[in-house]
């Protein structure tokens, strides 16, 4: 990478840390540290909500998904605006009016201490492990792109983020999120513009999308009702609705964002920003992936996008096998390029028969490219032992560093760092808040003053930063374990949502009903997950509905005086 790009990247890291630490003086008491004294304007909260949700996995993984499978992933986000509407009339006013620090604090006021502690504990476990994955996933890719080892990139991402979160608290998290979101949007728009400019003139934008469309890349709706298919219209509107209600309504990393707003209405409007912009933003991300796919039809791509793995195979005993695959790959790439040019010309001339013929040829060459790539990936997995290797995650950063001008490369890589750091910062702040408010202040030192709690909060943020970085560093070895833990996290999401449904939606619900319902919900999710092929998004529905139903039954069978939250 050029020294100018390195300078931009390092300048970004220094600037964001200095800018975050600058806000330390506004975090002198607990409410300032955890909730920015409920003083943040709605637009900054809204950008912070978006920046928290958009991680580096989105920039790297989702563009890769667009490259490999087209637009179908967009269906996953269809319910998001509806979730924001529902939350703004249900959860948001409850949390704001209760003047709580954490979502789980509200559960003790409504139910009891055990329900609060269990939900907070589940949050800590799942979010801390997820935070490790949020660091490790981009770190693995960036280590190859930047030519550093994985430990160094994990620390490059984790340490600066922990530093400004420890000192600046939620003030720093929110205001750096605003700037990072600006950088992310700039990076995405710059990439999109470069791709549009890079399309061959004789093909044009419409021709490029026609070519992608001929392979089903422009499919945005799949109305088949299939519980084992991850991305359909139904999973995107029904199952994902439960996921988004849970994520934005009960996950402290998001709830904490809008608890910093000045009023209930400000909190509502901040969520609406995601309601308006999330789907278009995600379309942009996926379109970038689709256009990179088209770009690499007319510009020869590498057979594998991970240069380090490729080098390793070339130096191994199976180098000859790899060279043979490369020869086949070069032939298939040339065949695919010519077929795509014929397809574009036939589409331009409006010749139906020629279009159908060219389309068949193009599909056949593309299938051949996919087949050879799969063989190459299998070879890499054998040689490197990296069974979780996913080549598409390297597509976007490789394209950026090999085809964009000096300066823009640095800015887009800084945007990838920004995407990772904005998510991690919010997660560290929320982990620290739940640790201090739901455990330390609740069970250990309830009489402690703000000064003491503030010191403990900073220590807790540092601890979680260290914990997440260590998880990230060992994530490569732990590979499949991390995946299991993340999947395990989806066991809790719907069930925790069910507890909040009970709290807000069933007046006679009591603590025992909520607690037993929560355990029943997790058991139901575990059963469905291990004994059926139902896709993970639907587990959120199973968990929430089970908790709600079991919670009502237990509460009605063994009633107690309802607690009215303060």
């Amino acid at each position: 990478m050029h020294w100018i790009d390195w300078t931009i990247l390092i300048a970004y890291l220094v600037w964001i840390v200095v800018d975050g630490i600058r806000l330390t003086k506004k975090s002198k008491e607990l409410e300032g540290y955890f909730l920015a004294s409920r003083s943040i304007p709605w637009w900054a909260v809204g950008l912070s909500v978006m920046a928290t949700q958009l991680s580096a996995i989105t920039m790297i993984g989702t563009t890769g998904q667009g490259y490999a499978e087209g637009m179908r992933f967009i269906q996953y986000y269809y319910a998001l605006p509806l979730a924001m509407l529902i939350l703004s009339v249900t959860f948001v006013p409850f949390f704001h009016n209760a003047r709580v620090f954490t979502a789980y604090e509200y559960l003790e006021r409504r139910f009891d201490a055990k329900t609060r502690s269990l939900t907070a504990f589940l949050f800590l476990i799942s979010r801390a492990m997820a935070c490790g994955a949020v660091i490790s996933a981009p770190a693995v890719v960036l280590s190859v792109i930047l030519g550093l080892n994985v430990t160094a990139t994990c620390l490059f991402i984790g340490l600066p983020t922990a530093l400004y979160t420890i000192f600046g608290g939620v003030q720093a998290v929110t205001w750096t999120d605003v700037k990072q979101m600006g950088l992310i949007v700039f990076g995405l728009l710059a990439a999109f513009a470069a791709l549009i400019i890079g399309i061959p003139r004789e093909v044009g934008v419409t021709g490029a999308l026609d070519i992608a469309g001929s392979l089903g890349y422009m499919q945005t709706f799949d109305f088949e009702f299939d519980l084992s298919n991850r991305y359909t219209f139904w999973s995107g509107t029904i199952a994902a609705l439960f996921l988004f209600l849970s994520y934005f309504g009960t996950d402290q990393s998001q709830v904490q964002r809008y608890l910093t707003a000045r009023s209930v209405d400000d909190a509502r409007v901040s969520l609406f920003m995601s309601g308006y912009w999330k789907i278009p933003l995600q379309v942009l991300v996926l379109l970038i992936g689709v256009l990179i796919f088209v770009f690499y039809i007319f510009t020869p791509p590498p057979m594998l996008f991970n240069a380090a793995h490729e080098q390793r195979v070339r130096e191994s005993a199976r180098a000859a096998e790899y060279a043979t695959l490369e020869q086949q790959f070069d032939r298939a790439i040339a065949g695919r390029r010519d077929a795509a040019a014929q397809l574009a010309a036939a589409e331009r001339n409006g010749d139906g028969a020629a279009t159908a013929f060219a389309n068949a040829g193009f599909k056949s060459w593309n299938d051949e490219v996919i087949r050879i790539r799969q063989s190459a990936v299998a070879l890499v997995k054998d040689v490197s032992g990296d069974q979780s290797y996913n080549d598409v995650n390297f597509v976007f950063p490789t394209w950026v560093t090999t085809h964009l001008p000096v300066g823009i490369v640095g800015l887009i890589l800084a945007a990838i760092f920004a995407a990772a750091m904005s998510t991690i910062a919010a997660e560290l702040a929320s982990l620290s808040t739940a640790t201090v408010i739901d455990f330390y202040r609740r069970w250990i030192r309830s009489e402690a003053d703000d000064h003491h709690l503030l010191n403990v909060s900073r220590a807790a943020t540092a601890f979680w930063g260290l914990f997440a970085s260590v998880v990230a560093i060992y994530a490569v070895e732990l590979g499949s374990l991390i995946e299991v833990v993340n999947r395990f996290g989806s066991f809790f999401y719907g069930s925790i949502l069910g507890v909040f449904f009970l709290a807000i939606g069933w007046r006679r619900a009591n603590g025992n009903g909520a607690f037993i319902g929560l355990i029943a919900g997790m058991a139901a999710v575990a059963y469905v997950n291990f004994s059926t092929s139902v896709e993970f998004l639907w587990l959120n529905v199973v968990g929430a509905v089970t908790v709600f139903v079991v919670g009502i039954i237990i509460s009605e069978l063994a009633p107690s005086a309802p607690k009215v939250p303060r």
Partner: protein
Amino acid sequence: MNAQVRKHYVRIVVVWLLTLASLYALQQYFS
């Protein structure tokens, strides 16, 4: 809840439906 916030409810639903319609049109046009 002030009137401005209430207006957002209608706007979000309208924008949401328009977005889905545009994506459906995109799929139909390029397939």
